[in-house]
């Protein structure tokens, strides 16, 4: 069982990381660079799920 401060730290890190990958997807949508927005979205989801599952066993 982790301390409260540790939980806050982990939550902050996840918030910034997940927010960031989705921001990249959001930016990529209206770019004309030949990169499929769906692959951006899938990557954002995959990275987010990975990070949440990574932290889960440590804080639960």
């Amino acid at each position, binding site marked *: 069982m982790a301390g409260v401060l540790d939980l806050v730290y982990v939550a902050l890190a996840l918030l910034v990381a997940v927010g960031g990958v989705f921001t990249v997807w959001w930016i990529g949508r209206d770019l004309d660079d030949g990169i499929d927005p769906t692959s951006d979205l899938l990557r954002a989801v995959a990275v987010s799920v990975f990070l949440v599952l*990574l932290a889960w066993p440590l804080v639960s």
Partner: protein
Amino acid sequence: MDHGKFTRVTTYFHSLLALDVFLLFFTGYSVMFNDELWWMVEFMGGNAGVLALHRIAGFGLIVLTVFWVTLMLIGPGRRKNFKAILMTLTDAKAFVQDVKFVLGRADERHPNARQFAGYSSDEVPLLSYVGKGVIYIFTVELVLLMVSGLLIWSKVGLAQFFQTKAAATAFVTFHGLLGVVMVMGIMFHIYEHGFHPAFYPVEMKAFVPKSMMPHEEHEEHEGTGIELLSLRPTWKWAVNLAGAAVVIGIVSVLVGSIFDSGYPVPAGLTPGGGPTSILLTIGINIGMFVLLLGVVLSTYGNVLRARYEQQVAGDEHDSEPEAAADGGQPRADE
């Protein structure tokens, strides 16, 4: 290739420092994140081998750092660098404009943020705001890491400087946690300079001294001229893959440092170094892979430099017969 910034000594110093710091990371964090990087410890000769390597690299770090500070103080034309690293209000504006640029609210990156200067290179300062930040973090971190590292250098010294074993343990923990800022910063540094679309896969400014850079006068041109450059085919997936790997690496090391802080004896005195998970193991290993990528790119930069130097030498050689064909005197000794 963009305008050069590094002198010849700086290119060598940067490469040596990089190799030394990577070695310190691999040895240091395979000990601190022992639960996740046990294979690295085995690979580098077990506990004793790893710590011996860490001390050798630490010694190298002191040599390199003191060399650099001394050179900045006594070397010709170096004093002005101290002024060039001062943070200004413009740097804060550059960061804000960078955020706006990413969100689509600004047309260009601020000159203080520009990595690719192109046609507008006269407007670009010696260091971008990130470059200044890197120097600050390095200075503070290296001093603290070297001092705390020396304090825990040997068992005799340890007992001489600390009254209790707990105090010594606290310092080992402190030393490891300090480096976390560095390790995250270096992952970003690798991404920042390896995956810029105009430079990918490696920014030659760091490897070819500015004295050897071609400086051509360009005609008047609006902006940097980046739209004239052609992307490398692999950039499209590499930039996203590396971005994801860097994010996972940084978050994993960060989360790991919260729970895995005190090997060999964690802060909470629980044996085993704290909890772990399979994904944390994978994540931290991805982080180490990002660092390894840095080693590879740094080496590749030096290979390209060697090739470039060879090419420059070859061009000079090639031009001689032409001069002779133009009516110059043929050389008698050939």
